């Protein structure tokens, strides 16, 4: 297998892009990545997206986006794994280059959520669950996460405030980030005073609705003297149903993907300098930190509340705000995480820069943890 490097990145601000269609957003990010890589030819295109079918009535995004960016003729396909789409697409792109089948791959994620009515968005996101067993009950994905949120507080004695601090820390880290949707501070009192989305999870503990696109160019690492190398990627799955989990409070897919990725990269937890985790709700972020093996189980909320995940903390996490503050355009989110890790390793993170970052990890979840993609990147 060949070593793989990230030759270019591109992204748009996560925002309400009323004037841009799905393909416009994709093109903005993809063309930036192509310019950044300084190359004009690619062999294959992987488009990560979750909601274009229910929200825009659009399929065959591979050919559509290839044509949009002037790359007719390349192999192109859409990758979908709910909100883990970006991380899984990156994994597929890396495999294509590592195997030797492709020499230049563009992996781009795009999502356009603003056009959807609230009920349409809830239904689209609930499509990540079994329609015949779970989604048909009307439960939302946040509703499922809320079950874990309550159980976490009951089992470990964590307070609502400690869990809510995950959102507060994300917003702190987002300050100064030009591509963040909500680059401002939010107090924990404000988070806990926001409406209840699904008891005990408040609205400001959930990622919002946003549009965005992010893209990377992957090439063989040989011949690239400096830059960012993909140390490893891994994808794992868990029971598709919450009741099928061995332990509701451990994302087994995250544990497995983390172990596989770290082993493959030859990196230990303590060597990870920057971490991007999937926090579509505060509890999902807390459980991700624990399931990935960075924090002792039951201690994630207090660890975050204690300030360990700030840019200057022990484990800088979600250094551009995470899903909560940078934004969560579903199928593009995983690629925002990858781009952000690359920005950190290139020392191009501006006010969000973590000093001396050499190794970074990005973790993306589909559903309530039924798919997990983990990528480890290293400064080369």
């Amino acid at each position, binding site marked *: 297998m060949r070593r793989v490097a990230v030759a270019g990145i591109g992204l748009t601000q996560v925002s*309400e892009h*009323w*004037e841009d269609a799905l393909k416009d957003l994709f093109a903005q990010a993809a063309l930036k990545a192509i310019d950044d890589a300084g190359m004009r030819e690619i062999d294959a295109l992987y488009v990560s997206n979750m909601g274009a079918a229910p929200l825009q009535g659009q399929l065959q995004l591979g050919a559509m986006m290839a044509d949009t960016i002037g790359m007719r003729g390349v192999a192109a396909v859409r990758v979908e794994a709910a909100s883990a789409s970006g991380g899984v697409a990156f994994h597929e792109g890396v495999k294509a280059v590592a195997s030797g089948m492709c020499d230049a791959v563009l992996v781009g994620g795009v999502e356009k959520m*603003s*056009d959807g*009515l*609230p009920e349409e968005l809830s239904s689209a996101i609930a499509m990540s669950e079994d329609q015949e067993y779970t989604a048909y009950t009307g439960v939302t994905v946040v509703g499922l996460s809320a079950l874990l949120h309550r159980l976490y507080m009951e089992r470990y004695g964590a307070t609502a405030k400690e869990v809510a601090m995950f959102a507060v820390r994300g917003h702190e880290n987002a300050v100064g980030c030009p591509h963040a949707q909500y680059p401002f501070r939010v107090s924990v009192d404000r988070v806990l005073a*926001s*409406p*209840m989305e699904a008891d005990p999870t408040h609205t400001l503990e959930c990622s919002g*609705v946003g549009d965005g696109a992010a893209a990377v160019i992957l090439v063989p690492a040989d011949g690239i003297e400096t830059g960012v190398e993909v140390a490893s990627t891994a994808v794992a799955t868990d029971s598709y149903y919450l009741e099928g989990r061995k332990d509701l409070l451990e994302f087994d897919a995250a544990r497995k993907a983390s172990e596989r990725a770290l082993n493959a990269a030859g990196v230990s937890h303590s060597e990870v300098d920057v971490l991007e985790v999937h926090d579509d709700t505060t509890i999902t972020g807390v459980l991700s930190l624990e399931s990935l093996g960075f924090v002792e189980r039951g201690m994630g909320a207090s660890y975050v509340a204690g300030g360990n995940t700030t840019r200057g903390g022990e484990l800088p996490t979600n250094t551009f705000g995470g899903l909560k503050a940078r934004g969560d355009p579903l199928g593009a989110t995983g690629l925002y995480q990858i781009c952000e890790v690359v920005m950190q390793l290139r020392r191009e993170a501006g006010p969000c820069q973590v000093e001396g970052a050499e190794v970074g990890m990005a973790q993306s979840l589909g559903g309530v943890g039924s798919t997990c993609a983990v990528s480890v990147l290293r400064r080369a």
Partner: protein
Amino acid sequence: MIMRTTNAVGIVGYGAYIPMNRLRASEINRVWGGSGTPIEEKSVVSMDEDAVTISVESARYAVKRAGIDPREIGAVYVGTESKPYAVKPCGTIVAEAIGATPSTTAADYEFACKAGTEAFQTCIGLVSSGMMRYAMAIGADTAQGRPADALEYTAACGGAAFIFGRESEETLADLEGSYSYVTDTPDFWRRGREMYPRHGSRFTGEPAYFSHVIGAAKGLMGEMGAEAGDFTYAVFHQPNTKFPIKAAKTLGFGMDALKPGLIVPYIGNTYAGSTPLGLAATLDVAQPGDRILAVSYGSGAGSDAFSFVVKEAIGRARNPEPPVSAFIGRKQYIDYSLYSKLRGKIVK
């Protein structure tokens, strides 16, 4: 482009009306379990009130404030999306009630929340051209909000009437120009036979309200060569408290300019009545020489902007005809049960 008159036109009289029932946002939260408070409270019609009675009340006050013979009013136009009859004009009822019939024209306007200011422009044109001496434009609504919908907090009842005439010593404020900004932006709509409107949720923000309000305001100010600092007061359509404040800030207006006409926190969004009522409340406190910018917004979508300069005659308007603040202060609280009955949400 800016609309200027051939012959100068001004406001001869105006009148307002707001029903006295109030429903607090907290009462809606109590019933539906929400926690939003886009406004404090909203006005609700009584059993025997509708868009026509609101129009008649405000029209009568306008005629009194103008001190004119209603038979000289050559046109009565009612802008509303709450017509009691699908077919049969509100304008004829109002014209009859104020004594303007039969030598007059009457009709209704529909352009969501800017129907009232659409009527302004028509009246201004009719008067400026010399086709008639006076023309009356009314914006009034008994707005419909689906139970538990975000709009239920704000959909309110009220209206204001304006009489336009050729500029003279009797005009209270003279028009400098108007500017309309219209696109096909379907952010909010109600089809025939549907009881409640539907809306595109957050789509009604940036691409709808702000794009059009700011587009119209900038269009007018740009062609006038005016800046925010050149205006004493500004009135923007008020669907909630946040939107007009944000629009004002974007355009460079401070809260002092906005405050007299910002009545939405106390009465809600009176739809076609919103900008006319805000303008009326501003005229209630304005002094000669003050310049007022008024910008409406109607879903679908469009905005009409107007610039008025207040005249000496405004002192004449401070007569027994009640100011908008009197209607805001005249209130009684109702609970959600009575509200449901009054708005036809439950029927026996």
